[in-house]
């Protein structure tokens, strides 16, 4: 699974609501690097020098049949805007695949709960499809502030049972993911919870898992400069001291964190 630096052409771009954008990309070389793991990320150089440093973005989905990857990006600043403003047919300069991935080895028939908040659902789609392929039961809790942000809920449906929560009660169950009765029911049978979203949400999910004795992995989004383990900017404090999220993460078992 060697890291590569190559150009990817935008084959399809979908502007979604709430400033989200879904990009489908194909490598200029024609071939994707082998063995991309769900939970890994890419580092994209924003076009036209919009930013100096690359921007880390999770791999949303990988299709080895067509050699395409997709990314789900929320516009929040210069880098994400410049990337999402590029039209179809243009190329992005990308380094990938980076970081580790979510655990995938569970007993057949086990249940895994995926919990995503906002753009944090991005790395969970590929994981949901991989788990389903392996005969693992997947239950998903998808939380957002409002219905506009539930941009990829349909995409998850083929792979899992889906529970939706919104803070403003505009769709699904009102409240936060950890308030949902469904989530608490799911916890009873789960082999593991795998979560990505805003910090406070991941901490609440981690606390609920601890209380129920359920294993839990979270995907962190620390600020990064190199994405390669060279600069030591992205560290998270763990039981083993400061470690790089870009190489030893972004996925961590909560037992390793000091939360």
């Amino acid at each position, binding site marked *: 699974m*060697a*890291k*590569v*630096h190559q150009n990817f052409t935008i084959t399809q771009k979908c502007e979604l609501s709430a400033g989200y954008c879904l990009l489908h990309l194909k490598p200029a070389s024609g071939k994707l690097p082998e063995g991309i793991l769900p939970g890994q990320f890419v580092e994209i*150089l924003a076009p036209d020098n919009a*930013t*100096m*440093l*690359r921007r880390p973005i999770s791999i949303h989905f990988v299709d080895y049949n067509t050699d395409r990857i997709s990314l789900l990006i929320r516009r929040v600043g210069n880098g994400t805007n410049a990337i999402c403003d590029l039209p179809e047919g243009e190329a992005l300069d990308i*380094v990938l695949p980076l970081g580790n991935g979510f655990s995938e080895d569970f007993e057949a028939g086990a249940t895994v709960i995926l919990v995503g908040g906002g753009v944090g659902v991005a790395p969970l789609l590929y994981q949901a499809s991989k788990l389903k392929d392996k005969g693992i039961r997947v239950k998903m809790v998808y939380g957002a502030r409002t219905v506009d942000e539930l941009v990829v809920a349909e995409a998850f449906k083929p792979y899992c049972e889906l529970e939706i929560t919104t803070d403003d009660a505009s769709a699904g169950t009102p409240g936060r993911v950890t308030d949902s009765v469904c989530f608490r029911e799911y916890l009873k049978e789960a082999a593991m919870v795998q979560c990505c979203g805003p910090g406070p949400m991941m901490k609440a999910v981690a606390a609920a898992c601890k209380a129920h004795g359920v294993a839990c992995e979270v995907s962190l989004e*620390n*600020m990064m*400069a*190199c*994405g*390669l*383990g*060279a*600069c*030591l*900017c*992205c*560290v*998270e*404090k763990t039981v083993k*001291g*400061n470690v790089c999220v870009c190489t030893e993460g972004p996925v961590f078992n909560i037992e390793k964190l000091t939360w």
Partner: protein
Amino acid sequence: MVKLNVNLGKGLTLKNPVLTASGTFGFGEEYSPFIDLERLGGFIVKGTTLEAREGNPYPRMAETPSGMLNAVGLQNKGVDYFIEHIYPRIAGLDTEILVNVSGKSVEDYAETARRLSLLENIHAIELNISCPNVKQGGMAYGTTCDGASEVVSAVRQAWPRHLMVKLSPNVTSIKDIALAVEGAGADSISLINTLLGMAVDVERRRPYLSTITGGLSGPAVRPVAVRMVWQVAKAVKVPVVGLGGIVSGRDALEFIMAGASAIQVGTANFINPESTIKVLEEIEEFCERQGIKSLDEIRGII
């Protein structure tokens, strides 16, 4: 073909003038998926201290216009870990490997250098004198002539091979510091380390870095670095190694024309992992286009 090899003296010869800046290139291995490390003149590994250090709390970096602030704070596993675990993996490479040495006391610096002197394939160390001097209330060694020459003299006793000393730009007269370290026994001088800076997240009403202030690097600092290299190269006799914001061959050539014998590529490695090779090839192309046979023809012409 242009002749690119450089002799920095006291046993340090580079096949070309392109080195990497400490703290931006890990231990080289992080970049081996992207470039052939043996094409480099050499690489300088992460700042190493006598004992392991945890570094500063997160957040440690912020992007700024054409640059970045960092406050990594010398996180490393200590010199013995380097000797036992990292050196054996990289020592066989056909390129120069320099270890960047930091410390919190003169004794620390000297002891770290002494331990490294047992490693046959390390022909040079780079002394980072921008570290706070704990005895002097935390003021960096490299900000006074006395502090700078004290640490360089002590390491000179402990380290028999090539001693490169890296200067902090956060001083009133860079030339005076350069003369002091040359007098204390430096074989070459590299500059610049990061410029002290600060940035505020106004939405959250707090600084971006956990340490409030941090070190600025990247293209934003390049004109300051070129000016300082020019001033130092005019003043000292030992070779000067220039760095600060180099992204392209042209940037590197600015430093060489200002008097640098070699250059280091730092923050640019984060932007493009093949930056070092790009810089090298662009220097070659420039020389070919201008009919330059040796960099000596243009070094220090300003």
